[in-house]
């Protein structure tokens, strides 16, 4: 490994086949206590139409084999616990370990959603306190914690808008979505029964207010705005945007995925936002877990409160109660109360910081601007507007060497980093979207800057090195085209002849 790579080396790494390939009849990794009731003949009890013979192909391995299997697999992953994970828009901050402990406490993890509410006051108090905290942070009036993720928060928000507009006589037809928006926004709008009208960002990557003024009409139900936008810049005319919408009876939805730039510094409620969601798995530090779970609470202004999904948590005579029925409610968006375990972690995060959450925001913005400043010389910055918690470069300068954002991303792996977000937002061709979060020390940021600069140099002097990266991983770039052309989505008993990784 050349000297310029300071952060990583190569080391021996265990191979491991699929668990199905390791299976041998008769093994198992977990024993049950013996049954204390008379045994039954299951085939007789269920009857031949309902009894199952065998689970073909199901694995049989020992406990140590399970431990090793997944331990080995885990070592093939990058993780926040290993280093900076500067995925823009994903807010890969430190996931406090104490939160894992708390979420597993007896009396927290063990509680059933249908147990009598007088025996669930602890759970309800956690939800209640979290709601209050989120409302204070966002400056909004009422909340639901039910949505399972950001995208479901978006859906809930749009359904609230729809129900509200419907109550005014007309649900309207369209949702406006900036071309810089995350893919979930348009996908969600469709599920909410709306047509999507994509609107072009202006030359600064911001909402084109004049254009907006022209577009908003009686058909427009809402504008979905991400603020700060996916370029990491604050929408300076957000209040005006809200006014325009409100003047025409439309609503302002805010995608709060980038709340890590605002918590403690500004409350969206003051921007004129009518409804928004938060991603607890971003701003509130709950672990991404390789893709989930998350939670996407939705916060609304008072006029939308009557439409919140049931059940609604209310305080009554000093007790917390889940109100099961509200006649204007949009209904349920998920069974049970939501991803409660995620809510627990988010509350733990919030309580650990308290008002100091502002400090986290400041550090996040500081880190992003520090990186921006230090990489401006090496990479093209398509939009010069001020950065908040993230910065978006493009591969424009490297393109002439045939090196694109994906190549640079892959080369970052050799330098010991997880890549930034590539190819998003769509308004930046060859985007390199970098979000360090507040968790990164100056030392780690400096190593990242060094790595990026070094790669910029390599792109000019040795582009092939970059284009064929990564060179340090146990597998190289994978053939995604072949994977999609003839998808192999599961192991099959016969395919066991294939060689082990």
């Amino acid at each position, binding site marked *: 490994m050349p000297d310029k790579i300071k952060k990583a080396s190569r080391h021996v790494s265990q191979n491991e086949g699929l668990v199905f390939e390791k299976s041998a009849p008769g093994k198992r990794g977990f024993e049950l206590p013996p049954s204390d009731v008379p045994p039954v003949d299951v085939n007789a009890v269920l009857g031949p139409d309902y009894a199952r013979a065998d689970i073909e192909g199901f694995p049989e391995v020992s406990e140590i084999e399970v431990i090793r299997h997944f331990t080995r697999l885990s070592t093939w992953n*990058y*993780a926040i616990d290993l280093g900076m994970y500067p995925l823009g828009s994903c807010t890969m901050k430190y996931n406090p370990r104490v939160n894992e402990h708390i979420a597993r406490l007896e009396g927290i993890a063990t509680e059933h959603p249908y147990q009598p509410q007088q025996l669930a006051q602890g759970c309800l108090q956690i939800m209640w306190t979290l709601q209050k905290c989120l409302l204070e942070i966002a400056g909004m009036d009422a909340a639901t914690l039910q949505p399972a993720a950001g995208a479901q928060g978006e859906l809930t928000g749009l359904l609230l808008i729809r129900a509200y507009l419907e109550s005014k006589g007309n649900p309207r037809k369209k949702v406006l979505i900036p071309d810089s928006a995350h893919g979930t926004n348009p996908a969600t709008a469709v*599920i909410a029964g709306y047509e999507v009208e994509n609107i072009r960002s202006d030359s600064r990557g911001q909402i084109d207010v004049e254009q907006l003024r022209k577009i908003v009409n009686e058909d427009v139900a809402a504008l979905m705005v991400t603020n700060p936008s996916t370029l990491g810049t604050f929408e300076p005319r*957000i209040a005006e945007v809200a006014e325009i919408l409100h003047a025409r009876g439309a609503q302002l939805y805010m995608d709060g995925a980038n709340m890590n730039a605002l918590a403690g510094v500004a409350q969206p409620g003051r921007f004129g936002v009518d409804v928004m969601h938060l991603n607890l798995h971003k701003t509130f530090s709950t672990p991404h*877990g390789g893709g989930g779970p998350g939670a996407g609470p939705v916060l609304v202004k008072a006029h939308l409160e009557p439409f919140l999904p049931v059940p609604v948590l209310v305080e009554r005579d000093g007790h917390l109660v889940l109100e099961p029925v509200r006649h204007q409610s949009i209904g349920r968006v998920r*069974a049970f109360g939501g991803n409660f375990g995620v809510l627990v972690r988010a509350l733990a995060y919030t*309580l650990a910081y308290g008002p100091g959450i502002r400090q986290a925001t400041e550090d996040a913005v500081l880190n992003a601007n520090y990186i921006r400043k230090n990489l401006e010389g090496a990479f093209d910055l398509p939009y010069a507007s001020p950065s908040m918690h993230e910065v978006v470069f493009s591969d424009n300068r490297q393109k002439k060497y045939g090196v694109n954002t994906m190549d640079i991303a892959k080369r970052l792996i050799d330098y010991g980093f997880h890549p930034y977000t590539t190819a998003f937002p769509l308004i930046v061709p060859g985007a390199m979207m970098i979000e360090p979060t507040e968790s990164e020390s100056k030392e780690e940021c400096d190593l990242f800057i060094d790595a990026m600069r070094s790669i910029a140099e390599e792109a000019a002097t040795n582009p092939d090195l970059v284009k064929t990266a990564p060179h340090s991983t146990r597998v190289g770039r994978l053939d995604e085209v072949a994977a999609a052309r003839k998808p192999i*989505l599961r192991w099959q008993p016969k395919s066991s002849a294939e060689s082990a990784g």
Partner: protein
Amino acid sequence: MLEAIGVRSIEELFASIPEALRLNRPLDLPGPLSEAELIQYFRDRAAENSVGYSSFLGAGVYNHLRSVVTDTILLRGEFLTSYTPYQAEISQGTLQAIFEFQTLMAELTGQEVANASMWDGSTATTEAVLMAERLTRRRRVLVARSVHPEYRQVLATYARNLNLQIGEIGYMPSGQIDLDALRSAMNNEIGAVLAQSPNFFGALEPVSRIAEVARGAEALTIVAVAEAVSLGVVRPPAEADIVSAETQSFGMPPSYGGPYAGVIAAREKYVRQMPGRLAGLTTDGKGRRGFCLTLATREQHIRRERATSNICTNQALCALAATVHLCLLGKQGLREMAEQNVAKARFAMAELEKLPGVHRVFDGPVFNEFVLQFPRSVRMINAQLLRDKIIGPLPLGQYYPELTKCGLVCVTETTRREQIERLADAVRETLAVPV
């Protein structure tokens, strides 16, 4: 660092936020709490819950044994603190585990392929219906009333704005779907039939016969599985076209409603209409086997308003829990666990049916849940049981007006015989006192 950036204060970094929109006071939040205080705060909350009570609740969320090993794996930072595995070269661990999850789910449900997870059983079921709608281009769906009421509510929420019409099909004295009613409601505007097995009453549905009826009208059959442990002994819904399942029973604690992991499994030919992520097998430039996310053109980040679903963040870590859990149990362990559920349910049924005025409402085959009719309101009985630290049957009147005085009882391998006997004794005592 400020200096390097060229600003004098942190405030300057926020200059792009108009003054008027800035917050000029500290947030009014409790805290900060140190680690020890934080733990104490949540222990105090935990003490306000139900520790020490015996519970007979199921209804979509089940108490099953979980191994310490599962948590050991989940808590490895490499799994816990990694993102969606878009960068395959440094995410092979997550990717291979997803591929294994997909395989396990397909094997269990008797389907050809399965996805990497959905938010939960209810949204998976709803998305299965939307998937069927895309496949059939028909906007009517028949749903058994014996499907979990909350699943049906979620479906209704989604369906309302998508111009999807839902017809409901009743149940029979067996607790199973009314096949005759289904047959007569069936026509070729119906895109799909949705049933749950074991259903909300605990009864196993005759999946192959439902599928037969559906197929007659070229409609798809969707089977929801809320109690996945049943698949250890119950015939898989192989005749269904799409299966939606909740995998909470596989290593996830009840956790007051989540996080769990839903999943959709289906015939392979339908895969391009499937929502959610999929991991696929492929090779690198040197021919080494590897895994990557695939068929991404179905997804929102590529297809935006034309995506199969808006799902992005899913329930990956929960799916990993299910994967580890199932590897631990293995073929034999899962079967044994399922058998114990059947045996305990039988035992509980027998014990409770001995009580005066208590009898089963439905006579169809069940897995680990069953409905009992009591001589008085279940809520009243339950209020008494709490004194004995017992959380009694789920009152069904709230969901089915015709089932007042009926309660849903769930027992699993974690329910001890002595707890069942205590329940029976406590109910007997309660009933002995005249109202």
